[in-house]
């Protein structure tokens, strides 16, 4: 084999109380798509941050083209031809694609931004790697898939030969995943190496040449993608056999828990983003909302929580909550798993127990009279950590110290606390590994059997089909189709979402 473009050898990285990486080896060839898989907290993101110079390893060496390097910061890594696209995009909405791409690496002529050269470069790169990016489009008008390609282009613009993608498919619907994979094929053909993290093992096998499995911070093995199955991978990840998804029976009752009539939300420009939507969810029922991101799901969810102005009526149980504040609604029994846990779900620099209090300030066990009951909050956080398998050295560590999937488990565990009557969940298992996903689903099913009504928004179509009692498709702010999950496949749902079969 030729010299790998990048090679990590014997990497060890410790955080207080945790060894995130222990003696990890990873070697990536030019023109190879190399997947990294592992459970939540296995150390994938940490390893990528080390490769990208964002964190420094305690031990071990990084070699680029066979020569040892020591990155002090991400800009060193960029100089060495390594680029990374983070799970949460970092584009400026109000700028054009071109402006976003050149931001921080502006080609200049005579002190001024050289737009012509930049545009030519962007078009050339876009053409060469089959990215199909329009340099003059405004980023806020782009869908997630497009934004992701802009992020990739931004990295290539800086001369990357190694591209790191941390959970790139978590936010994409199947069609967009296909497009992404086509782009990756283009990159591979041009000799770019791609390192990519995902929890969706079937996708991993579809696109990768080689797969490295991490478990508990160390490399278990690297296998060629060919001849491996998702099941075999999962078993390597957890070190034991996977549970099989159980069959389920309907728990839907006759009691309406959420009754929404003629709900509309307008954008600041006055465009209806949720357009006269009406629906009911009964106790024990899961209503799944399918749709490509940006079709009004976020606005609908935020309107239900009272975070966004809306017209129409919302009844929770036998009360009209249309005029209620967010706090009143939450205390009235609405649990909320937000789409973006970093933005709406967590105080990253606060401790886990303080995060347990967040959103429950006014309720037991977090509250005692006008005071915060710290002891009770700590104890209940410990309960969530136990029940939801959050991997953490304690409840006093700051939330940013948890891996993405473990943060998500904490948020879901918190929102299932305090006996909610309605759970509004956006992508509740986003970034959670297969084992933990099954565990979260179990929690949801148990609560549903006890009468919880759930509004579920998810980009994971199997999750939508598997959990929902009723499925609706949302397109341009409207519910355009109602489907029976029993007769729906991810493929048929996928085409319904883009309006093809609606």
């Amino acid at each position, binding site marked *: 084999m030729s010299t790998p473009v990048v090679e990590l050898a014997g990497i060890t990285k410790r*955080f*207080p109380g945790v060894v995130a990486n222990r*003696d990890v080896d990873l070697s990536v060839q030019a023109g190879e798509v190399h997947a990294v898989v592992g459970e939540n907290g296995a150390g994938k993101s940490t390893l990528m941050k080390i490769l990208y110079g964002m964190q420094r390893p305690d031990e071990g060496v990084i070699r680029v083209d066979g020569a040892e390097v020591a990155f002090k910061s991400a800009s060193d890594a960029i100089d060495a031809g390594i680029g990374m696209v983070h799970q949460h995009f970092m584009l400026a909405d109000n700028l054009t694609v071109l402006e976003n791409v050149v931001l921080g690496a502006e080609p200049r002529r005579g002190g001024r931004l050289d737009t012509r050269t930049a545009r030519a470069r962007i078009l050339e790169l876009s053409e060469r790697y089959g990215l199909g990016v329009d340099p003059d489009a405004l980023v806020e008008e782009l869908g997630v898939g497009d934004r992701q390609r802009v992020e990739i282009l931004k990295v290539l613009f800086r001369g990357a030969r190694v591209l790191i993608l941390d959970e790139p498919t978590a936010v994409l619907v199947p069609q967009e995943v296909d497009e992404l994979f086509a782009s990756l094929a283009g990159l591979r053909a041009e000799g770019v190496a791609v390192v990519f993290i995902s929890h969706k093992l079937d996708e991993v096998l579809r696109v990768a040449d080689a797969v490295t499995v991490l478990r508990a911070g160390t490399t278990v093995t690297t296998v060629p993608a060919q001849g491996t199955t998702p099941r075999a991978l999962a078993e390597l990840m957890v070190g034991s056999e996977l549970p099989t998804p159980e069959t389920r029976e309907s728990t839907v009752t006759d009691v309406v828990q959420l009754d929404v009539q003629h709900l509309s939300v307008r954008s600041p420009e006055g465009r209806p983003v949720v357009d006269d939507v009406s629906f009911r969810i009964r106790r024990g029922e899961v209503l799944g909302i399918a749709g490509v991101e940006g079709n009004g799901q976020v606005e609908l969810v935020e309107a239900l929580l009272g975070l966004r102005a809306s017209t129409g009526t919302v009844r929770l149980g036998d009360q009209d909550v249309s005029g209620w504040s967010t706090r009143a609604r939450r205390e009235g029994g609405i649990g909320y798993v937000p789409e973006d846990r970093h933005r709406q779900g967590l105080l990253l620099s*606060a401790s886990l127990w303080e995060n347990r209090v967040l959103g429950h300030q006014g309720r037991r066990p977090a509250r005692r009279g006008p005071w915060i009951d710290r002891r009770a909050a700590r104890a209940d956080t410990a309960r969530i950590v136990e029940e939801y398998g959050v991997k953490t050295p304690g409840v006093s560590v700051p939330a940013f110290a948890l891996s993405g999937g473990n943060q998500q488990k904490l948020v879901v565990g918190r929102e299932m606390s305090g006996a909610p009557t309605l759970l509004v969940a956006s992508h509740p298992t986003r970034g959670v590994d297969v084992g933990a996903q099954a565990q979260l689903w179990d929690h949801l099913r148990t609560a549903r059997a006890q009468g919880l009504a759930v509004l579920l928004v998810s980009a994971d179509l199997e999750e939508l089909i598997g959990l929902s009692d009723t499925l609706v498709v949302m397109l341009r702010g409207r519910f355009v189709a109602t489907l029976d999950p029993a007769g729906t496949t991810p493929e048929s749902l996928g085409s319904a979402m883009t309006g093809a079969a609606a």
Partner: protein
Amino acid sequence: MSTAAPERLDPGPLRRAPRVDGRALLLAVAAPLLAAVVALAVSSIALVVSGSDPFTVYETMLAEGSDLRSVLITVNNGVPLYLAGLAVSIGFRMGLFNIGVEGQYQLAALLAAAAGAAVELPAVLHVLLIVLVAVSVGAAWAGVAGVLKTTRGVSEVISTIMLNVIAAGLAAYLLATYLQERVEGSNNQATPEIAPSGRFPTLDAPLEALGVTLPQGTSLNGFVLVAVLVGVLYWLLVGRSRFGFDLKATGLSPSAAVASGVDAKRMTVTVMLLSGGVAGLVGLAQVLGDTYDYGLEFTSGLGLTGIGVALLGRNSPVGIAFAALLFAFLERSSATLQRIDVPTEIYVIMQGTIVLSVVVAYEVVRRVGVAQAERAVRAATGDRA
């Protein structure tokens, strides 16, 4: 839990608080020490440059600053600084910058002094009325900035600075026209003196009962008690209450706080009202316990110094108390410095240096702490990894 969990060093119950060891304690005192060393070094350089010997200067400052008279003056002067620091710090907690403490306390002190002089009431009621007026005026003046921010999106930094200018003009105008007592043959402008029923008792009697002999012409302002009380209330409210949690959450992440049910607008207005209310108390130590009126000579600049005090105190009620006393001590030293021919502005340089050093020192120590924790983990895992 699954076997795939990364190696955990402390398998004990999750409820257990992180261990406090000697090193952690050392780190806790390291930051203020480091700040002090840096501040001393920079101040010494400033002194040498201005042509004085730093050691004699410090010696004189300490010697003169530690006699009972100076201590009492330092404490008395520290009280308004403490209140100003608390007022600023409440806003800092949620990322609001109330630069307007200056205007709030000036206007509050003027109107409270005028109101106090205009009425005759039984002792306790009289004082309460004056306090109530001061707190309401301070809160209202700050509230304007809060309302402007929530309804019009005006940055509170800009609006409070402008409100300071308006307050200064308004106070001067009111004092020159309606509120002053004209005294034959004097061109000093001041409100009429408040009757004895509206004055705050000193703490001289209790001190003397404890066997302390007060030097001639000094006394301990009774408002010290009010400052302590406000400090305790601040700690309870900010550190322990639901309101304090909302405040902290809003400061850490406005979007997460709103999603958790915090009403951001109401929070902004409430915090400005609280901050302004405390600011209203700043001038009262002087009005109620020293001059009994508000005149042209009324102390100014406390609001701006309060920002430094709040930064130095790192938003903790105890830290702010130390900061206020330190600033008061330095200010007191300026008189000493003048006597030994050192430019008095040196104390302003010292105040500034201290604030900067503290900000820098805490960051340095935080990083060392993280590195050290990682080393500790490494040592503990070395034999197992």
